């Protein structure tokens, strides 16, 4: 019995197959396959992409923030060092020199020139006595005798011993900082050394942070007033556009929108012993630059992989569905063939029974009528001789017709029982011609026989070969017009086999049709044909170990050649 492989049910997950159109069913099946497979393959990939992205983002963020903090600390330290260096130098001057020495304009001028060459950044230096009057001065301005008694630099220096001012413009109209130290000698006399330094040196330190063009770094005082150059957060001595919380010695970071409208990270820390806070503003994008490029790379990898997966699934599903389709159609054709042969088998058995039973009485009728004819023929004087002769000859002719019918019925029955026997294919061809003789006569088709005599006898299946030749001959008859020519040629093959060529001068086929004629359900006769004839023919020939080929030209005709081996491939037991 045939056992058919069922189409896997998972292919129908989304919707059970509809019975109306096989093409739509296969399309649906393929879509389901593509969607399900794509989901189960691309989805994990997507999750991996998301999880990885998140992990990378976190570690990248921590790393970037840590490096920003390190940079902030280093810069702050440099500023602290810069200021401390200058303060300690002034402190040293005020203790190393006596008041009288510092009072000497030549001396202070010399000290000033050494300071400028050795340390840099100094604008001027001056000595202020304990009442606040500038006693001696070296620098570009005329500040000698100026009273600083009421100024915070004087008062705070006396109070705390040293003082670093905020940035201010003062007389000089460019930003500078005042450094002042208070010294009291062993006689109790006190004085102040006051120096101003240019903030451009601090700008340089900030610039040396090596920030990119979109980032900004500057100093603000405790009131939020900008002290050094800022790119985008306000001018010097103006209020900073970012509101910062109280700064501490430890670097803090806040995330938020900066004044330039860009989402940025702000790092800030207080410069020790001053009123200044170092602020560094880095756009999130530049800080997470590496993360962004990594994200883009990962996204590209993900998209390319997903694309390749989907394309592969599409291709594979096409192949698989095609195979399912082929298997289905094979199954269907096998099923039909089975049904057909079962039907034929039962008709065949019935026909064989009837033919057998009829054959004997028919033989008797034949002989009786024959004898009647003989008697009249051998009797010279017989009344109504001609009339009786006509009658007996009509009876024998009818018997002859019946004989050909019973022979055909028996031949048909024999086709059903698969059996390998020694055959003369010329005989098989003659039997088959018997089936189509009437039509060829009626349509005046010229049937030319070139049968090789004697031909190699071959072991094959009589009934199956009859069916094969009948199929091809019927196709040829359908292909030719009335008065067309069909030739049948048989040959002995060198290996002991035999071959048959059935050629017609009919409509022929184009290359495309030629390629497909042995496919099951391929028919050029539309609803008139089942499209099974030649596929069954092909199957039979293959089963019998033979070859079938076709040569055809459109409007010129076709020639089918069948080569049959001496012995079939199958053994008697296999049938």
């Amino acid at each position, binding site marked *: 019995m045939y056992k058919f492989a069922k189409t896997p049910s998972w292919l129908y997950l989304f919707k059970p197959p509809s019975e109306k159109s096989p093409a739509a069913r296969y399309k649906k099946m393929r879509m389901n396959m593509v969607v399900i497979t794509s989901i189960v393959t691309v989805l994990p990939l997507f999750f991996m992409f998301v999880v990885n992205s998140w992990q990378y983002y976190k570690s990248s963020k921590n790393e970037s923030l840590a490096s920003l903090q390190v940079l902030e600390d280093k810069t702050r330290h440099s500023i602290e060092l810069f200021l401390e260096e200058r303060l300690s130098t002034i402190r040293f001057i005020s203790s190393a020199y006596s008041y009288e020495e510092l009072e000497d304009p030549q001396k202070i001028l010399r000290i000033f020139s050494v300071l400028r060459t050795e340390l840099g950044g100094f604008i001027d230096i001056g000595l202020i006595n304990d009442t606040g009057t500038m006693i001696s001065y070296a620098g570009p301005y005329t500040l000698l005798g100026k009273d600083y008694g009421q100024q915070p630099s004087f008062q705070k220096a006396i109070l705390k011993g040293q003082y670093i001012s905020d940035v201010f413009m003062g007389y000089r109209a460019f930003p500078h900082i005042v450094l002042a130290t208070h010294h009291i000698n062993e006689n109790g006399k006190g004085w102040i050394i006051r120096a101003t330094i240019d903030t451009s040196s601090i700008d340089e330190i900030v610039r040396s942070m090596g920030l990119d063009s979109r980032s900004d770094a500057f100093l603000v005082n405790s009131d939020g007033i900008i002290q050094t150059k800022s790119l985008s957060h306000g001018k010097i001595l103006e209020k900073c556009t970012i509101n910062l919380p109280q700064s501490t010695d430890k670097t803090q970071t806040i995330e938020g929108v900066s004044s330039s409208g860009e989402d940025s990270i702000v790092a800030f820390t207080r410069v020790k012993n001053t009123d200044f806070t170092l602020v560094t503003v880095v756009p999130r994008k530049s800080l997470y630059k590496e993360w962004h490029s990594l994200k883009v790379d990962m996204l590209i990898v993900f998209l390319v992989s997903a694309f390749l997966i989907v394309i592969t699934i599409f291709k594979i599903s096409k192949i698989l569905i095609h195979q399912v389709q082929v298997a289905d159609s094979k199954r269907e054709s096998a099923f039909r063939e089975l049904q057909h042969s079962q039907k034929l088998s039962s008709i065949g058995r019935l026909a064989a029974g009837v*033919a057998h039973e009829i054959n004997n009485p*028919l033989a008797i009728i034949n002989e009786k009528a*024959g004898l009647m004819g*003989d008697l009249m023929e051998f009797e010279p004087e017989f009344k109504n001789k001609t009339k009786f002769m006509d009658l007996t000859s009509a009876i024998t002719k009818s018997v002859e017709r019946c004989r050909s019918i019973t022979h055909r019925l028996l031949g048909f029955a024999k086709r059903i029982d698969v059996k390998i026997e020694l055959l003369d294919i010329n005989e098989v061809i003659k039997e088959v011609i018997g089936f189509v003789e009437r039509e060829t006569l009626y349509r005046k088709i010229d049937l030319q026989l070139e049968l090789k005599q004697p031909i190699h006898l071959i072991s094959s299946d009589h009934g199956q070969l009859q069916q094969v030749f009948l199929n091809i001959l019927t196709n040829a008859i359908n292909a030719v017009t009335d008065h067309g020519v069909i030739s049948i040629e048989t040959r002995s093959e060198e290996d002991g086999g035999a071959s048959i060529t059935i050629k017609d001068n009919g409509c022929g086929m184009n290359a495309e049709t030629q390629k497909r004629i042995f496919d099951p359900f391929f028919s050029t006769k539309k609803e008139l044909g089942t499209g099974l004839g030649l596929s069954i023919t092909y199957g039979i020939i293959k089963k019998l170990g033979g070859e079938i080929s076709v040569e055809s030209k459109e409007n010129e005709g076709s020639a089918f050649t069948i080569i049959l081996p001496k012995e079939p491939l199958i053994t008697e037991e296999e049938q």
Partner: protein
Amino acid sequence: MRPKKILLVDDEAEFSSTLAERLTLRGFESDTAPDGESALVKIEEEEWGVAVVDLMMPGMGGLAALKRIKAMRPDLPVILLTGHGSTKEGMEGMSLGAFDYLIKPLAINELIEKIYEALAG
């Protein structure tokens, strides 16, 4: 030339007797046997020119009878008659030594032709 004596072996008496008569009309001496066994007896007793044997017979079938005849009288030509539409059993008979085979219902002229061929050896 063998004697123009024909033995017709067929279980269908109507058939064989009519055929015998027709052969007689054509100048043959003929007799009938209804089965293999009686045919063998007649062959044993008399000299025959040709035996025409039906393949489908009750009891001993045509092929079995053929084998026995050939064993007994290897030179006696045997023409087989088959009711089958197929040539298969006829061919099988020929491989067993039958002269030829004909398909029932017969065409008398064909039979006569074959008988003459057989008689000529």
